[in-house]
């Protein structure tokens, strides 16, 4: 490319009137390593732009949260708490039922022993009646 054309483009470039294509032409010229002495400042500029464009971020992007999510921890904690309250309540109920059962059982036992006592008494009455009957029949 003729030098005067480059100079013309540079004039437009400084006024921000160049198109992207024209700027690409300038870039090519100044990166060619064969630059006119009086345009050396542009060589540095375009050299720097090209250098900067090659700079990349070395870090990989992390899309999952690395930080401990405290909100989830609190949710988990409240679940555990609710569960243990529930379990404690169940245990208490069970104990209550057991106690009630034991009470009923002891009542029933008492009832049955008393009934048995009654039965025994009745049994002796039967024996008495039998004997009475025998005596009167035998007569």
């Amino acid at each position, binding site marked *: 490319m003729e030098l005067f054309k480059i100079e013309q483009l540079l004039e437009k470039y*400084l006024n*921000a009137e160049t198109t992207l294509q024209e700027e690409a032409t300038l870039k090519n010229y100044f990166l060619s390593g064969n630059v006119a002495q009086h345009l050396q400042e542009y060589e540095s500029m375009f050299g*720097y732009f090209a250098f*900067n464009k090659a700079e990349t971020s070395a*870090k990989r*992007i*992390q*899309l999952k949260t690395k930080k401990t999510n405290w909100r989830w921890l609190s949710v988990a904690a409240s679940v555990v708490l609710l569960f243990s309250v529930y379990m404690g309540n169940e245990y208490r109920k069970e104990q209550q039922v057991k106690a009630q059962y034991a009470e009923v059982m002891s009542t029933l036992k008492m009832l049955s022993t008393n009934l048995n006592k009654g039965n025994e008494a009745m049994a002796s009455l039967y024996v008495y009646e039998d004997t009475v009957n025998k005596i009167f029949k035998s007569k």
Partner: protein
Amino acid sequence: MKFSYNLSIETIKMNESDFLKVVLPFKDKVFRLAKRLLVSKDEAEDATQELLFKLWKNKDKLSGYRNTEAFAMTMTKNYCFDRLKSKQASNLTLVHSNYKEKDTSLDKKMEYRDSVSQVHKLIEKLPEQQKLVIQLRDVEEYDYEEIGKMLDLKPTAVRVALSRARKTIREELIKQHNYGII
């Protein structure tokens, strides 16, 4: 933000690999723009991570944006401005220490030409708006229309800022060559 991207009603469910296909082609542009503004490489890496993660969180809305890339660049600009503001507010002088660290690594990579790294320093001295415009045009090669949308500026305002930035860099370079001052 005055400019609004066309929203379409239809939203497409994106999985991770779909998302990466959309985002990875411009990930480095986000990184370079963040680095241009935040100076430090580490901070730029963090910003990139955070910005892409934000995009990922809003992935269901992404298909609604006509141009995800332009949207990402706008987000980057806003994010970095916020970071710079909060840094100023908390009176951190990180900029200076990062300046040195970055320069040494830059020099190593660019031993072949000192004046090229001078351009880097000159851009650093420009106002934020001009930094953005130089980055988006001369490095990333977006057209004026796109840059205008990204920065919420009229294309003519983009040209004005760009012209100023280019002239300043050139004049400073000439000064340095003539007087041998760095």
